[in-house]
């Protein structure tokens, strides 16, 4: 029975000791404090900022800490068109992020190149970094971004984090709306 379990805590019965699976605890911590690194390149960055604003409040999920430094962040949200000129910058910043790290491709341009089928645009950021969640939209509404981040949380919750803690993990992309 290797599934993760939710843990409840009744101090009178259990006496200040919580028994749970390592996976559950580690994933619970990681899920509820994903610190995004906003790779805000173009128009999607504005919707990312709006999601951080008061109306759509990404802070409810613990994600308002938008760290621009890759060393301090967990999740890189690629928001906007990635051009070939910019590709090396995105890749380098991804490599500087510390594991565990995830990548969210926000918007059509980051997912597949969007409506810019031209000589200068990278046709999808997944050509250079492994993407965990794709969010469609041009730009996606902040609610769609939050939905995507919740999908990411679901994904993190299912990760076998305790197993092979010292070994790096490969990432598998999940499309928005896929049955989990």
């Amino acid at each position, binding site marked *: 029975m290797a599934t993760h379990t939710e843990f409840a805590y009744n101090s009178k019965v259990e006496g200040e000791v919580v028994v749970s699976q390592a996976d559950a605890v580690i994933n619970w911590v990681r899920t509820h404090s994903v610190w995004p690194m906003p790779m805000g390149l173009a128009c999607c960055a504005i919707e990312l900022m709006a999601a951080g604003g008061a109306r759509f409040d990404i802070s409810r999920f613990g994600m308002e800490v938008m760290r621009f430094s890759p060393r301090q962040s967990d999740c890189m949200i690629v928001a906007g068109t990635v051009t070939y*000129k910019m*590709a090396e910058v995105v890749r380098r910043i991804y490599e500087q992020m510390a594991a565990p790290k995830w990548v969210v491709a926000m918007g059509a341009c980051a997912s597949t*190149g969007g409506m810019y089928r031209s*000589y*200068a645009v*990278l046709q999808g950021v997944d050509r*250079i970094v492994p993407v965990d969640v794709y969010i469609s939209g041009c730009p996606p509404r902040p609610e769609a971004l939050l939905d995507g981040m919740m999908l990411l949380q679901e994904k993190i919750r299912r990760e076998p984090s305790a197993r092979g803690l010292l070994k790096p993990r490969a990432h598998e992309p999940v499309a928005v709306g896929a049955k989990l």
Partner: protein
Amino acid sequence: MDTIVDTLKARFPFVTPRPSSDTPAVNVPADQLLAFAQVLRDELRYDMLLDLCGVDWDVASLRFGVVYQFYHSGKKCFLRVATLAPDNMAPAVPSLAGLWPSADWHEREAYDMFGIRFDGHPNLKRILMWDGYEFYPLRKEFPLAGIESELPAADTAEATGAKVIAAPMMGGPFYSGTEEHYHMSSAEPRANDQSWTEDKPKPGQKG
């Protein structure tokens, strides 16, 4: 509105009027451009060079042109000046960056997009594409999807295996032109390009 064109024609014999839908416009040969521009700025007081762009007229004779938009901030009126680069294989036009500093970046862009050299420019290098890019994108024979080449950064190319590819057109661009207006270059991939569809895996993915 035509008085400025008449003034210029009277002053410079090589100036010819240019048909235009809105503002007065003149044609100037490239070798006289610098002297013409000097007079335009110092005596006629067209103090703002708003815009400058290259055009590929795609004709067998002089193919590359540069079009300037000048503005008189006192009289609030525009003037368009068009010139043609004398050599099709190595197009070059005198640079106006010494007279109007705004020309600096615009000329770099025209060089980047068309390959038109601007003689006398302080720093003529690519501005929108990366420095090692081999092609001139806005030329008519260059396809919109691009031509496959190497990624500008060698370490990223090595780590990911990505290249600068021809963007998958998926049957587009989507419009039909009548024969007389079909001036699109035959280098554009049209609706027969099905080389990459959702059925085939993206490079890097397994099946």
